């Protein structure tokens, strides 16, 4: 008798469930699943704390010799080499009894950016989130690491507004300082997430990826973060920033994340941005909006003077 799809899925999930009996971790529940593996909430018996464990999904050749296992190990080593508040700290690495590699990281209480954006947020709050993402990515770039798969699903917003960039499995190391093997992607391999994947990655030229590849994805994140409500338009300076970040040619994009972040900061502060040349009317409108309280106060003063003059 053939098994139903549900039964197959159930059996598959059972087989996929990590056997951590010879480790100090007790798996509690699965909290996430990606293309490469799953993330589980676990209890660290030795330190009596909750942790998150990322494990390669089955089917995976034994002893972690497959590409997914290799990427997971690389990801753990990359993360371990990057200490930043916007990056999840790695506590431990290991291999399951069935040969699948795993790594243990801090358990983050929060929501993925895509879920976080379901609730109404002010533009200032959204821009703050973006600034923190840029901060973490700029730090990684300085360490020679390009993320290459920045999407809303790979950003976690913590309960206290902290922002963490996850899933470094597709990262490329430009400066090999940590001993981690450099590029492992075969030329011609298309990797990343549609809508956020830079054209050079979509064309399979992963060797051409650099900081500007992440700038492209950050432009996509900015677009998602600042999506205007129905019936409204994205302000022109912001639209220009997004367009510059998402330019098809890397040469037309911001040269570095810092340049993008500072343009967004200028936009948030009501200052002119490098990506957009405003006209005189827009200049006047921006200043009027920025100093509207002062304008109202001066107008009130003039009106009072006129009224006093009229009733003298």
């Amino acid at each position: 008798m053939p098994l139903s799809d549900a039964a197959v899925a159930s059996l598959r999930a059972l087989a996929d469930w990590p056997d951590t009996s010879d480790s100090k971790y007790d798996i509690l529940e699965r909290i996430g699943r990606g293309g490469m593996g799953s993330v589980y909430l676990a209890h660290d018996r030795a330190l009596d704390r909750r942790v998150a464990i990322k494990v390669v999904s089955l089917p995976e050749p034994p002893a972690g010799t497959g590409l997914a296992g290799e990427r997971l190990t690389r990801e753990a080593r990359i993360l371990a080499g990057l200490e930043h508040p916007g990056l999840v700290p790695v506590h431990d690495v290991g291999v399951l009894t069935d040969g699948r590699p795993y790594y243990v990281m801090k358990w983050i209480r929060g929501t993925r950016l895509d879920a976080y954006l379901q609730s109404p947020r002010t533009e200032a709050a959204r821009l703050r989130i973006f600034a923190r993402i840029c901060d973490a990515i700029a730090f990684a770039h300085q360490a020679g690491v390009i993320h290459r798969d920045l999407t809303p699903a790979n950003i976690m917003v913590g309960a206290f507004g902290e922002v963490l960039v996850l899933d470094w499995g597709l990262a490329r190391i430009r400066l090999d300082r940590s001993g981690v093997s450099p590029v492992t992607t075969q030329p011609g391999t298309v990797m990343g997430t549609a809508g956020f994947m830079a054209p050079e990655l979509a064309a399979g030229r992963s060797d051409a990826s650099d900081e500007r590849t992440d700038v492209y994805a950050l432009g996509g994140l900015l677009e998602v973060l600042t999506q205007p409500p129905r019936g409204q338009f994205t302000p022109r300076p912001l639209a220009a920033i997004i367009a510059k970040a998402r330019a098809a040619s890397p040469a037309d994009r911001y040269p570095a994340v810092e340049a993008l972040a500072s343009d967004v900061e200028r936009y948030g502060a009501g200052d002119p941005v490098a990506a957009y040349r405003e006209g005189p009317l827009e200049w006047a409108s921006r200043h009027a909006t920025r100093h509207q309280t002062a304008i109202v106060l001066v107008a009130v003063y003039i009106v009072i003077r006129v009224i006093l003059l009229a009733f003298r």
Partner: protein
Amino acid sequence: MSKPVFGLILGGILGIFDGLSALVSAPEVAPQIVGIVIGSTFKGLITGVLIGYFARKVHSLPLGLLFGLVVGAVLAYGVVALQIAQGGKAYYLPIMLPGSVLGLIVGYATQRHNEHASEVADSR
């Protein structure tokens, strides 16, 4: 430029304009306009430095506006009281109303002045 110095300069400039406005609102005082402008400028300087000093200590736009309003009103009342003491007519509304609004303007401007620098200093 520090907030008290900025308040001092802004208060002085607004005081000059406020004094000169008497030429429009009360042309008959033209012969005394120099004294009026000097008095108004002096009032503006005091208003500005007080509000600027407050802005340096308290980073709050609503409180800055309130403090500006009160200082502007109190100092304008002082001018009215001086006029009464000298046997003049009491111009409560024509002096106190614009004086209070000028206090509001200085209160707003001093809170907004160097706002980013204040945030940076606070975060250290």
